[in-house]
C-alpha cells in the first residue's frame, strides 16, 4: 500500500513538473507570437532541442522517489525557466545583449541593465537533452580547419558561430581563461561577428592580494568599456543587491552541503551539482536561484528528519571531478541503481571563497574577482598542481568520500596532464580512482555504453561491488 502511495506521488511530481515546463514554453510562444517564433527557430534551430526537456526530466527522475525526485525535477524546471528567460533576452532585448565567456561574472552585466548570453551554454545544455546535438557543430568547426584535438566545448561553440546560429550581441566580453581552445573560440567569434571585444586578464598568482586588486581594476575597466559601447550603465546599488542575493544563495547551498556530509546522504547527484552549475554560472544573485537552493535544502532536511536516504541502498560515496559527463548525464542515476553509488560532491560546485563583501564598490569587485580567480576552472586547470590535489583531498575528507571519479575529458589538455600525478596521489591517499575516458560534448568518442562499461569494470574489480539489479 505504501509503495502504491509513493508511486502515485512520484507520478504526480513528474506530471506536475512536466506541465509547468510545457506551460512555460507555451507562455513564451504566446508572448512572442507564432510568426516570430518560427522566424527565431529558423535563425536558431537549436531551440527545438529544448522541447526535449521533459524527456531529460524523465531520464533523471527515473527510479528516484519522494523528496529526491522533487529536487531533481525542481532543478530541471528551474533550468527550463531560466533558458526561457535567456531566450526572451535574445528575442526582445537584442539591443542590450552582451556575449560573455563563462569566466566573466554575469552579475556585473545584469547590474548594468544588460542581458548576458554565454555561448558555451549551448555546448553544455544541448548534449544533456540530445547526446549527439553538438556533432554537426563540431564537424563544421573541424571542416573549417579548427584542430580536432582541442576541447569539443569551444570547438562546438566555434561551429555554432561558423554556422551563424549564435545570437548577435552588442559586444563580447571574454578572458584569458580557461584554456587555449576557449580563447581561440572568442577570436573566431570576434572576427565572424565583427563585434568590439574586451578581454579580461585574469592574473596567475591569484592567492595574492595584489592579484585581487589587479583583477578588480580589470573588472572596473570592463565596466567602463561596456558603458562606452553599450546603453548599459553601472548601477552599484543593483550590483549590491545581486551580490547580497548571491551570498544568500551561498548560505543556502552551504546548508545543503552540511546535510550531505551525513552518511547516507539525504540528497545527491544532479540535485547538488546541476543546481550549482546552473544557478552560480548562469543566474548568480537572483531570487530564483536562492529559492531553488532553499527548496533543495528543505527536501534534504525532509529526508534527514524521516531518516530517509536518496539512494535506497547507498554503499559508495563518489566525488565527481571535472564537469559532468554531459551526453551521459544520467550516469549517476544508473550507478545509484546498479551499484548503490551516491554522487555527493563535484569539483565544479565546490568553491573555497564563495562570499562577497558588499560594503563598498571596491569590495564587491574584489569579491567577484576572487570568485572568478578561485573558481574551479581557473584554480584547477592552470596550476600549480597542489590547487587541484589539495581541493580533492579536502573534499574527500570533508564529505566522507569513498572514491573519486574523474570525468577524463580527452580534449582537456590541462587536466589530462595531471592524470599521472593524480594516480600517484590517490595511491598515496589509498583512495580508489576511476578516470573515465570520454569526450565532454561528442558521444562518438566514447558512447554511453562505453562509459557504463568503464564504470562497471572499476566497480567490480576495484570496489569489489556486486550489482544490485
Amino acid at each position: 500500500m505504501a509503495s502504491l502511495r509513493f508511486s502515485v506521488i512520484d507520478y504526480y511530481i513528474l506530471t506536475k513538473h512536466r506541465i509547468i515546463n510545457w506551460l512555460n514554453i507555451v507562455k513564451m510562444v504566446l508572448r512572442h507570437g507564432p510568426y516570430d517564433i518560427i522566424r527565431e527557430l529558423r535563425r536558431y534551430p537549436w531551440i527545438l532541442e529544448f522541447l526535449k526537456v521533459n524527456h531529460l526530466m524523465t531520464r533523471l527522475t527515473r527510479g528516484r522517489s519522494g523528496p529526491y525526485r522533487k529536487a531533481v525535477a525542481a532543478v530541471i524546471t528551474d533550468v527550463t525557466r531560466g533558458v526561457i528567460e535567456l531566450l526572451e533576452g535574445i528575442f526582445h532585448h537584442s539591443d542590450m545583449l552582451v556575449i560573455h565567456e563563462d569566466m566573466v561574472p554575469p552579475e556585473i552585466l545584469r547590474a548594468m541593465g544588460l542581458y548576458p548570453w554565454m555561448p558555451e551554454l549551448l555546448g553544455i545544455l544541448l548534449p544533456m537533452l540530445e547526446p549527439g546535438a553538438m556533432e554537426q557543430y563540431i564537424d563544421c568547426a573541424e571542416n573549417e580547419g579548427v584542430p580536432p584535438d582541442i576541447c569539443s566545448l569551444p570547438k562546438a561553440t566555434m561551429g555554432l558561430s561558423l554556422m551563424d546560429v549564435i545570437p548577435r550581441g552588442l559586444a563580447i566580453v571574454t578572458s584569458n581563461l580557461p584554456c587555449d581552445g576557449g580563447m581561440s573560440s572568442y577570436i573566431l567569434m570576434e572576427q565572424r561577428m565583427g563585434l568590439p571585444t574586451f578581454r579580461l586578464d585574469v592574473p596567475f598568482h591569484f592567492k595574492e592580494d595584489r592579484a585581487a586588486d589587479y583583477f578588480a581594476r580589470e573588472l572596473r575597466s570592463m565596466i567602463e568599456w561596456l558603458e562606452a559601447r553599450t546603453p548599459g550603465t553601472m548601477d552599484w546599488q543593483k550590483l549590491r543587491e545581486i551580490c547580497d542575493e548571491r551570498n544568500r544563495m551561498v548560505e543556502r547551498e552551504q546548508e545543503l552541503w552540511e546535510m550531505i556530509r551525513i552518511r547516507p546522504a539525504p540528497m545527491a547527484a544532479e540535485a547538488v551539482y546541476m543546481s550549482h552549475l546552473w544557478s552560480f554560472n548562469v543566474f548568480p544573485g537572483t531570487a530564483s536561484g536562492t529559492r531553488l537552493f532553499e527548496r533543495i535544502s528543505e527536501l534534504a532536511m525532509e529526508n534527514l528528519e524521516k531518516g530517509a536516504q536518496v539512494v535506497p541502498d547507498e554503499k559508495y560515496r563518489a566525488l565527481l571531478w571535472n564537469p559532468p559527463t554531459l551526453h551521459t548525464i544520467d550516469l549517476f542515476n544508473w550507478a545509484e541503481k546498479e551499484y548503490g553509488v551516491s554522487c555527493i560532491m563535484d569539483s565544479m560546485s565546490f568553491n573555497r571563497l564563495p562570499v562577497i563583501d558588499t560594503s563598498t564598490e571596491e569590495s564587491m569587485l574584489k569579491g567577484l574577482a576572487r570568485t572568478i580567480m578561485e573558481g574551479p576552472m581557473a584554480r584547477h586547470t592552470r596550476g600549480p598542481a597542489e590547487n587541484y590535489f589539495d581541493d580533492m583531498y579536502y573534499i574527500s575528507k570533508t564529505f566522507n568520500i569513498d572514491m573519486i571519479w574523474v570525468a577524463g575529458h580527452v580534449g582537456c589538455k590541462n587536466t589530462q596532464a595531471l592524470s599521472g600525478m593524480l594516480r600517484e596521489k590517490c595511491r598515496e591517499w589509498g583512495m580508489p580512482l576511476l578516470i573515465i575516458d570520454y569526450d565532454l560534448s561528442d558521444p562518438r568518442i566514447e558512447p554511453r555504453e562505453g562509459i557504463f562499461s568503464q564504470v562497471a569494470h572499476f566497480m567490480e574489480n576495484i570496489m569489489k561491488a556486486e550489482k544490485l539489479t
Partner: protein
Amino acid sequence: MAKRYYAGCDIGSTTGKVVVMDDEGIVASTIIPREVDPEETARKALYDVMASIDGISDLKDFVYLIGTGYGRAEIPFAHENISEISCHAMGAFYCNSAVKTIVDIGGQDIKGIAVDDDGSVLEFAMNDKCAAGTGRFYEAMSRIFNTDLESFSDLSLQAKKMVPVTAQCSVFAETEVISLLARKTSPSDVAAGIQNAVGKRCFTLLKRVGVRDKVTVTGGCAKNRGLIKELNRILKTEIISLSEDPQLMGALGAAIFARRKGSV
C-alpha cells in the same frame, strides 16, 4: 563422498578456456577455438573438459560455475560471472603469490593489472580501443611473414639488430612492415622491431598502474617468447613465468572464485 567440482569458463575473443578444480586443486583444463556464439563456445569447452573427468557428465554436476571474459554475460548455465580483470589477477596470484603486476595480452585488448597481497585488483588500465599489440595484431603480422605465431616469435629471437616499427595503429604498422620487407630489410630484424613496439605499448599501459616486482604476462601472447624477452628489457625487470599455462589464468581465477563460492 562424491567429489565436488568447480569450474571457471573464460570466453575470450579468439578462444574458450575452461579450468576445473576440486577441493585439492586443478583437475583438468582445455583451450578451444571460439565459435560464433559465446554460449556455444562455453558449452563445447565445458563438455570437452568434462570428457576427461570421471564422474561428471552434465553441466549441473558442477557445484559452482563462473563465467568470465568478454562473452561472460552470454553463459546462461553459469551461476554468475566475474570480470576477467579480477580473474586474471586471482589466477596469476594462485600460481605465484609474489606476482604484483600483470600484463594481460588477449586476443582483442591489453590490460595492465596491479595485484594486491591477497590476489585482488588494486588498479587496472585497459587498451580496448585499438588492436595494436593484441593477439589480433600478432595474427596480422604473422600473415605478412607468411608464418604462424610461434615461428614469428622464433624469428624475432634470431634478429641481429632491431628495426623500429614506428606506427601506433595496427593497420599502419602492417603497411610499414610490408614496406620494410619490400626494401629487403631482414625479416628477423623487422620481427624484433614489432616485438619492441608491442613491448613499449605494454610499458606505457603498465606505467598507469605502476610497475612493481614481480611482473608476469598472462593471456595467449604470454607464449610469445620474443615479446617476453623484449618486455624483460623494456621493463628492466624479470618477467616471471607461471606454474600453469598463462592463457588459462582467466579461467583459473574464475574456478578459484567458483570454489570459494561453492564451498561456503
